[in-house]
């Protein structure tokens, strides 16, 4: 196994009991290993921040900032959590900072062509994502983060709370409020109403409108 392969294996197990002490030493002493760690983490960091912030012009700046913070913190990584969990916490902090900043939406990303999905579906998905990020932008930051972590990343409330450094009950509370608000906004969006199979306002019959 070459050096890069060995490092890859070590990084994959980082934070698990197998090789943590060795890995921690390497993080402190071996710049190449540190660089490999960061290169491994970069795509994940990009994905996390894309979900938190949506498509925006300074997304790569956010990724670079987060990686720099992770690079600063890695030599002190004690292996009590998985490396990705450790990095995710830092990314959440970075995400909060960038949520406060105004940014231009980035040029639309065109996904690679897929034979199994029709162009109409791709276009609809793209539009749905764009609208979902619009909805999320209007949420308070903490609720938005709770929604991203739990409803989009798929973490359970306990794991999300642990990453945020709050109690699970508080995370559940934020998530409940966030879901309620997202649902309300989606129900007011004709596009989402169609996706959710709800009749649009102009399609509802007079007796369904609840006129007095």
């Amino acid at each position, binding site marked *: 196994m070459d050096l890069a392969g060995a490092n890859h294996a070590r990084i994959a197990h980082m934070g698990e009991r197998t090789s943590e002490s060795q890995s921690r030493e390497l993080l402190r002493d071996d710049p190449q290993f540190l660089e490999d760690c960061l290169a491994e983490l970069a795509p994940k960091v990009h994905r996390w921040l894309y979900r938190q912030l949506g498509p925006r012009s300074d997304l790569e700046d956010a990724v670079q900032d987060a990686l720099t913070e992770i690079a600063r*913190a890695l030599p002190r990584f004690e292996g009590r959590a998985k490396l990705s969990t450790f990095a995710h916490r830092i990314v*959440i*902090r970075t995400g909060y900072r960038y949520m406060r900043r105004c940014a231009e939406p980035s040029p639309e990303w065109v996904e690679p062509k897929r034979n199994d999905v029709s162009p109409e579906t791709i276009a609809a998905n793209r539009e749905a994502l764009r609208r979902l990020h619009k909805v999320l932008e209007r949420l308070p930051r903490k609720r938005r983060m709770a929604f991203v972590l739990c409803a989009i990343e798929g973490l359970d409330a306990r794991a999300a709370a642990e990453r945020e450094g709050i109690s699970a009950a508080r995370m559940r509370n934020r998530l409940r409020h966030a879901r309620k608000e997202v649902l309300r906004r989606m129900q007011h969006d004709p596009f989402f109403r169609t996706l959710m199979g709800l009749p649009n306002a102009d399609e509802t019959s007079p007796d369904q409108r609840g006129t007095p």
Partner: protein
Amino acid sequence: MSRDRCATPQDRTDSDNHMASERLISAETQMNRVLEALREVPEPSLSQERARTMAKRALARQSKPLAPRAMLRSPGAAMWAAAATVLLVSGGGWVALKFGASERGDGALATKASSTPEASVVELNLPSGDRVVASQGSKFRVLDTGAAHRRIHVSHGSVMFDVASVEEDGRFSVETEFGARVRVVGTVFGMRASRTGFSIHVYEGRVEVEHESSVRTLGAGQSATWGQRTEPLDADVVALGVRAARERLKRAKHRAKRTQHAALPPSPSPHNQETTVLSSHKPANEGRDLALGDPVARRARAALVDGRFSDALDEAKRQLAKHPTDGRWTLIKADALRGMRRFDEAAATYQDAVHHLPPHRGTVAGFAAAQLHLHQLSNPQAALTALDACAEDYGSSPLEERALALRARILERLGRPEAFRAAAKTYLNRFPRGSAAPWMRDHTGH
């Protein structure tokens, strides 16, 4: 008997509630379905080359020391001002500062003391004029920064507070994880807190520490520890207070030769002070407070803190009838008058107290008189006179920055542009990052 009956209003309400909840569940399910579908949508990703480039760049940046500004980044910190040491918090908001190694992922706030010695201490100026100096590894929250009520929670670490004057009916309080609460009326003190105990050292002024229903007052130069003995205050944090205290001591000795009315001995250096370790319940060195040595004075001070100003004033008058030149009682009388909003009498009493107090306390009285003249009595000329009465003692005192700022404001109010510019220049040279520096620059056009 037929089971059929007409639907009551209660039945209709239950039915409506049931339908509403069903609709909500259905909508939630639909939303989950949409989100599920969106999760499958491919997302933009980084190429390996790009990831490698970013990793290299992160490593290159990592070796650069963190500027204090970067260390202040936190979920609630974006509104904080641009200057590296200036921290602005909106009322009611909070911010957590955490420096040093952390497994909780606070990497944005982390720094290494070995590589960034200049960042081992961070100095923050709150909008209320309070200065907070925190050492590496400290964690505290600013809970409230209103003009009247300022509240800070210290979780652990060494933190020094230089508290601006507190308004009438206002307070500045510091809480700790250990459950102790420190109340301040304008002072400089340092503290180290942890879950199991906390220690405090007062450099100037006076604080009241409340813990488990016992209240202890600490004066200048005194230290005390509650609970388990904590590590000594961080050297970098202490250095600021010690330096000021030594210079004050030198000036106090110089002044004592000239002043025959000095009622109190000068504040000793914190290094020479006895540190008293107290049990978690009862303070052990009651009665040794330099500032409030006797129980009568303590009761009067307590009355002031409780808002019973007339009681404190009566007691002060009684004591001053016996000892007319006792600076402590003059100060208590002035505080009581100020509490009763008798500002003109309070200002005159503060000015009187200047002559009966040692320099390090006299500056506090002179400053308070000047503030009252300027802000409450709208008499800038009298404010200038009060401030200049002990001008030479402000140098290297913790009040120096505020005194210089106040002097500039007074001169600006008096419409003396040349003198104002000179005062502003002195301030900016001495405290280029002081809390009043932006105002000075605005008004002088620098």
